[in-house]
């Protein structure tokens, strides 16, 4: 039980990566609170506290903020558009949740966190290299990467702050993407071939890193971006050979 006695606050715990982190923290002995837009989701373990919260609302975040050992800023949205196609409303949504939401939570929670606290932000490989037609999402994740380093520098040695940068993780969104392809099976095969481990990630893969970063084993890890993508971005975009 690597997180026994620790309290954790995970944003965006309704589904996907966030839910995976909630479950992993619980199984490691942490007391977990999570949040999201809308009512408590079905299937969330009873001992997990749920708050209805839009992280882009600073006043609402300030009300919810509490002393916690571990803060995971996982809540995120994506809009698939180029810069030219992006509306002001898209900006408010993507930057509001992905960038301002992380900022709101860090500003509200940092003063309440005890020494030895760990903040884990969910960045993305898209903050390092660009996914096509995801302009604001890519930019919002680069913001998360920059803020991660700043918090590590400004609030060490009391608080550690790192980011996990997931690649393609199996969620409903991934299958929805393949369904749009002319030949979904072929598209999936091509995508798999571009992963050195020949599979897509699972929420548990990201949760495993989150547990480690939250634990005392990671006491010297701060200010870093940890890419978990099955080796995809270690390879040239030409991989596995277009020939």
């Amino acid at each position, binding site marked *: 039980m690597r997180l026994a006695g620790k309290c954790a606050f995970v944003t965006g715990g309704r589904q996907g990566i966030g839910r995976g982190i909630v479950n992993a923290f619980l199984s490691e002995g942490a007391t977990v609170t999570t949040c999201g837009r809308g009512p408590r989701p079905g299937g969330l373990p009873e001992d997990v506290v749920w708050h209805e919260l839009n992280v882009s609302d600073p006043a609402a975040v300030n009300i919810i903020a509490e002393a916690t050992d571990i803060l995971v800023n996982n809540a995120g949205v994506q809009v698939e558009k180029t810069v030219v196609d992006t509306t002001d409303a898209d900006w408010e949504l993507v930057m509001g949740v992905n960038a301002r939401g992380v900022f709101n939570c860090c500003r509200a929670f940092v003063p309440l966190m005890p020494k030895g606290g760990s903040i884990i932000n969910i960045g993305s*490989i*898209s903050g390092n*290299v*660009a*996914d*096509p037609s995801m302009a604001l999402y890519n930019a919002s994740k680069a913001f998360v990467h920059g803020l991660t380093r700043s918090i590590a520098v400004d609030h060490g040695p009391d608080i550690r702050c790192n980011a996990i940068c997931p*690649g393609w993780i199996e969620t409903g969104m991934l299958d929805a*993407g*393949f369904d*749009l*392809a002319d030949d979904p099976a*072929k*598209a999936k095969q*091509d*995508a798999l071939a*571009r992963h050195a481990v020949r599979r897509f990630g699972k929420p548990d893969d990201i949760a495993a890193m989150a547990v480690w970063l939250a634990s005392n084993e990671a006491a010297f890890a701060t200010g870093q971006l940890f890419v978990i993508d099955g080796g*995809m*971005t*270690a*390879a*040239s*975009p*030409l*991989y*596995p*050979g*277009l*020939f």
Partner: protein
Amino acid sequence: MKLDGKIALVTGARGGIGRAIVARFIKEGATVYAADLTPHGSLNAHDDDGSIFLKLDVTQEADAIAAMQAVRRGQGKLDILVNAAGIEIEKTVEETTLEEWNQSFAVNSTGTFLTSKYALPLMREAAKSGSSASLINFGSYDGFIADPGLAAYCATKGAVHALTRAMACDHGPEGIRVNAICPGYIDTPMLQSFFNGDGSGGGGGNIETLQKAVRDVHPMRTYGTPTDIANLVNWLASDEARYASGQLWVLDGGLSAQVQQMKL
């Protein structure tokens, strides 16, 4: 002209990229020593381009010493060194023999070390003029992310990147700037060899199909030319780049700015 009065030495000067650099330097007014194994190099042609040919095997310390002695006798200084000599072996780690591994490092990494080692005293002389001297190494985008079947090549370029930063650190106070250019896919004999090779690159496919496939994966929808590389080398060599040092300059048409381009 940007390089009037400058003395430059380019290794691998008779290869695809090296030849373009030599031509550009001469156009910009530099005196250029073109160093390579033979006057013909990989293009099997020898331009009478106004450069001074020096026979140089970058893996041989004696050759490096002799080349720099020739520059010292002729000019007494060296403003610009471009370490462009390089080879590529298209194999995975398991397929690579120790001899091939050593040869890759001998040319790409040790060659950069040896030429730089014996050029630095001449570059310090040049820096006394008040303008910084410029040492330009050849890394590769393969030093950041891997092409399949190029294990030793990727490793040698990673070494060049680290050496670049180390030399920038050590010799900046002496007025010597050190940078690396990291090309992506450039239309050179080395690229054609990759298309035609036995590795996971070409494998004997239709070359036009291969070329189109490579172009299409680039955001700029083209691969580069030696002239594209020479343009950046020329800037880094010039006094306009007087504050640029210790950096790895990727020039790849945006290839490595993107994630994998899935076939959706």
